[in-house]
């Protein structure tokens, strides 16, 4: 029964992703149409418009969503908390503080970065800063909450850390306005300028994080029975924590450094997967990544085609979709 549902979900996500990729390639500044796509591909513009703009943007949006979905699934499993997500743990706020600090340092040194178009070396520096910030954020939260045992304490600590770190980031941008010219874009998330360089960084990140999540998924399964049971199963929890927190910080840091703050994808994707196909973590972390990718790609396609040739910030759409889903979830909880 469960096996079949999992198969159905995998197939569904696969088909949906394929459809969205086609939609992503077809959705352009003139709204979206397949005939236009065929015309573009046969013309001379195709290499630029489809090959250099739409393809990396589509792939990049999927990767950002996948990293966030993966980070969310790891957080929810590790902290045994259905509301754990890169946002509520201070990870995203930490990552954005890291990004802002690096940009401020750049502005002081007389150079100005653009998130999407920076040179490769600067890109690695940025990912490093975001990763460091994300790690600091989640560790602060854990320290404040004295571990992850108590849901309420963990969430409160996460909220406090998130608020304080984003206030610090705001303070930096007020003091050094040059640090973040496109501040609004960063805060609302943007997929507009994802190029092949971003895709490479994001892809490498996925290749690193997914195996880590997969490798420690048994620890997540064991944790659902409680820490003592997990230990009695012979699982080294401290190593599992280090690996998973590290992978989560890396996934969130990468996503934030390339696309800014995109809300709710990390929270919603694991929920969707659990709803459609309850499964051990080995399956659900990978499926959450796939669901996150599909979700952000859907939001991106909508963002560029709803009022083309203008755009809606993609983070606004994910917040609307995710917020709506959460409200619906809360209502169901109350009813049952």
């Amino acid at each position, binding site marked *: 029964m469960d096996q079949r549902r999992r198969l159905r979900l995998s197939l569904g996500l696969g088909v949906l992703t394929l459809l969205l990729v086609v939609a992503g390639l077809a959705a352009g500044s003139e709204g979206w149409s397949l005939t236009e796509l065929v015309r573009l591909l046969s013309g001379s513009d195709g290499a*630029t418009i489809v090959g250099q703009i739409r393809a990396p943007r589509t792939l990049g949006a999927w990767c950002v969503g996948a990293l966030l979905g993966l980070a969310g699934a790891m957080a929810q499993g590790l902290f045994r908390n259905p509301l754990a997500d890169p946002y509520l743990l201070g990870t995203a706020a930490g990552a954005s503080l890291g990004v802002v600090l690096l940009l401020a340092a750049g502005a002081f040194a007389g150079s*100005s970065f653009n998130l999407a*178009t920076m040179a490769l070396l600067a890109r690695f520096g940025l990912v490093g800063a975001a990763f460091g910030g994300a790690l600091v954020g989640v560790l602060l939260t854990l320290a404040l909450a004295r571990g992850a045992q108590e849901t309420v304490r963990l969430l409160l600590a996460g909220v406090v850390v998130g608020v304080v770190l984003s206030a610090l980031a705001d303070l930096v941008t007020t003091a050094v306005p040059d640090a973040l*010219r*496109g501040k609004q874009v960063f805060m609302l998330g943007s997929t507009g*300028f994802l*190029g092949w360089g971003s895709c490479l960084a994001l892809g490498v990140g996925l290749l690193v994080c997914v195996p880590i999540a997969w490798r420690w998924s048994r620890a997540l399964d064991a944790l659902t029975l409680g820490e003592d049971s997990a230990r009695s199963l012979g699982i080294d929890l401290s190593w599992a924590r280090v690996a998973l927190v590290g992978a989560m910080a890396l996934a969130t840091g990468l996503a934030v450094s390339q696309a800014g703050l995109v809300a709710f994808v990390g929270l919603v994707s694991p929920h969707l997967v659990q709803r459609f196909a309850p499964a051990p973590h080995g399956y659900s972390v990978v499926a959450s990544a796939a669901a996150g990718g599909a979700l952000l790609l859907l939001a991106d396609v909508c963002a*560029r085609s709803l009022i083309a040739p*203008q755009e809606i910030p993609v983070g606004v759409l994910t917040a609307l979709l995710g917020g709506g889903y959460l409200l619906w979830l809360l209502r169901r909880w109350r009813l049952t």
Partner: protein
Amino acid sequence: MGRRVVVWVAWLALLWPLAMAAQPLNLRDDRGMQIMLPSVPKRIVSLLPSLTESVCALDACARLVGTDRYSNWPASVVALPKLGGLDDAQIERIAALKPDVVLVAPSARVTERLEGLGLNVLVLDSRSHDDVRRSLQVLSAMLGAPEAGERVWRGIERDFAEAAARVPIAMRGRRVYFEVDTTPYAAGESSFIGQTLARLGMTNIVPAELGSFAKLNPEYVVRTQPDVIMAVDHSLRDMPRRPGWGALRALRAHRTCGFEGARYELLVRPGPRMGDAARMLADCLETLAEQR
């Protein structure tokens, strides 16, 4: 008898300006509100750079007692107390300056608070050429020299005409992409920058129906292949690295106008220096025509 008349006339001539200054002024701002000022204001606070510039263009710079933090032209306003920005104006400091009138933009959040403190607040919009002209008229009426506003405006018009005449025939009607932010946001046909470009005979790739400042899909810029690209210098340098933007023919052929610092500020301020901005754009278009 003749001597007496002369004395009277002399007295009148002496007292007339004082009488004028003491006359109450009735002004109508862009909210449609009637603002009553007991006399020509001697202490003015301006919370928008373009309004600061307008006050100075009307020869009343000496009456400014404070400005927002971005006002930096003419040089004399730099030394004035800086009172914050549109969203974070420092109400207490403004009140302490005891201004006779505070000039603000419609989006300012302080208007109600300042009025609540009994200050006169004049709300002036400056989003289009017409707005700038109207602001100049209202401000000159406020300063007791109603005809000065039109005089300044005629100066701007002269600059527009002179700049337009200088735009080479080869450049006229060319399609321009004017980037105001790397997001990318563009100055559309209906913005004041777009209006200036139209006065110079240029076409805009962002039509009026998309609004004054449209957030564009980056692909749109690549597909429309503008003939000329205008932006801040460092964004311009950055553009070839944006995905797909290397294919922009204007970038490849260096048909670009880059502006840095003070020169860019001049372009994005809807105030009395719009004529200078138009002349600067014409300079660049002339240089581009020579390159071809």
